[in-house]
């Protein structure tokens, strides 16, 4: 695969959230307002790029049997740096994100990419793959957060955008958008839209007697 594809492919064609089902929980939990979602996206892109490159550089030295633990340790170190950075420079956002920065460790996008991509490729393609997947993740995160903040509170990044009825405007905020379930509905809508545009991504329900195939790559 040429370098450009490595970067662009995960953004729409092979989006980590809508197609690979990776990293969903943080996508749902931090999207109530736009600012934390933006910070979270930046955090995930940097951790993903860092750990992809680090794993790719170490891939020939790592014993196969303990590679997962090494990968998790590398990821955790990256996350700790990001967490301490946020605490020091953006304490307010850090409080809103609470445990979710720490949960980047178990965000399966990262373990999934280091395991499936960085283990088999050089540092440069791994960096691009990390950034590409990070952007694909951020795209969904930011889209959901924008919709939730705009429809739920009539603001964007904390600034009033739609005049709210309480303050004499015409917009009655939809309070469902502030509750967690709205994130599910919005992501479902995004998935539906992506799959209408790209019919190749559709799944077809098959009734079969064998248990559903198990998905590797852990959880997020």
């Amino acid at each position: 695969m040429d370098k450009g594809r490595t970067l662009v492919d995960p953004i729409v064609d092979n989006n980590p959230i809508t197609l690979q089902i990776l990293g969903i929980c943080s996508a749902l939990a931090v999207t109530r307002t736009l600012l934390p979602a933006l910070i979270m996206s930046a955090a995930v892109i940097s951790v993903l790029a860092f750990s992809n490159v680090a794993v790719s550089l170490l891939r020939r030295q790592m014993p196969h049997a303990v590679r997962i633990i090494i990968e998790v340790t590398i990821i955790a170190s990256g996350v700790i740096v990001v967490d301490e950075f946020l605490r020091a420079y953006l304490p307010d956002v850090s409080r809103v994100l609470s445990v979710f920065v720490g949960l980047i460790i178990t965000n399966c996008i990262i373990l999934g990419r280091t395991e499936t991509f960085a283990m088999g490729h050089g540092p440069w393609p791994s960096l691009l793959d990390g950034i590409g997947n990070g952007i694909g993740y951020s795209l969904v995160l930011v889209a959901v957060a924008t919709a939730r903040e705009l429809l739920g509170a009539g603001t964007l990044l904390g600034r009033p955008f739609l005049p709210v009825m309480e303050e004499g405007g015409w917009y009655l905020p939809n309070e469902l958008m502030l509750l967690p379930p709205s994130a599910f509905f919005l992501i479902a809508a995004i998935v539906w839209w992506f799959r209408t545009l790209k019919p190749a991504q559709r799944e077809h329900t098959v009734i079969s007697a064998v248990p559903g195939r198990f998905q590797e790559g852990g959880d997020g």
Partner: protein
Amino acid sequence: MGELTGIFLSAVFVDNLALAFLLGMCTFLAVSKRVGTAVGLGIAVVVVQTITVPVNHLIFEHVLRPGALVWLGLEDTDLTHLRLISFIGVIAALIQILEMLLDRFVPALHQALGIFLPLLTVNCAVLGASLFMVEREYGLAESTAYGSGAGVGWAVAIVLFAAIRERLHYSDIPEGLQGLGLAFVVTGLLSLGFAGLSGLAF
């Protein structure tokens, strides 16, 4: 005792990790195609949560907390920044030990839980419960109650979800929405239902 029951019940119903905090979603969506496997995974989560949350509490309280290392003569040491890496290490190690113990002493249960145990290392519901335990400053008994409640809540959610998904096989769904899309909608509806329980006070 009443307070502990309260923590347990509110971890199951009000602060349900899967449906209120949306944690552990990847496993939730991937391993919920059949009720049987969902029950297996649910039990594994309950066991792991009940053990890891109190153990992480002990480690946080006696090693990582600012001033926790007084017994070593290190009054000013603050290792809080190491909590992420040590929690994930504890979880991974405990799951490994649990797996070996089950394999040795209860092979039938090991067979049933088999593939799910290792996967729980990277389940964010497990790490999340430990981090919430620190954030809410629970004591040892409280963390045990919270850990088991969080596990039970997650298990209840995935079993309900799997049961609904089995029924969905027989319904007529628009093409682009089949599979993942509809799974999100169903989880959203379940989560709305659980939001109705948030008025409960314990």
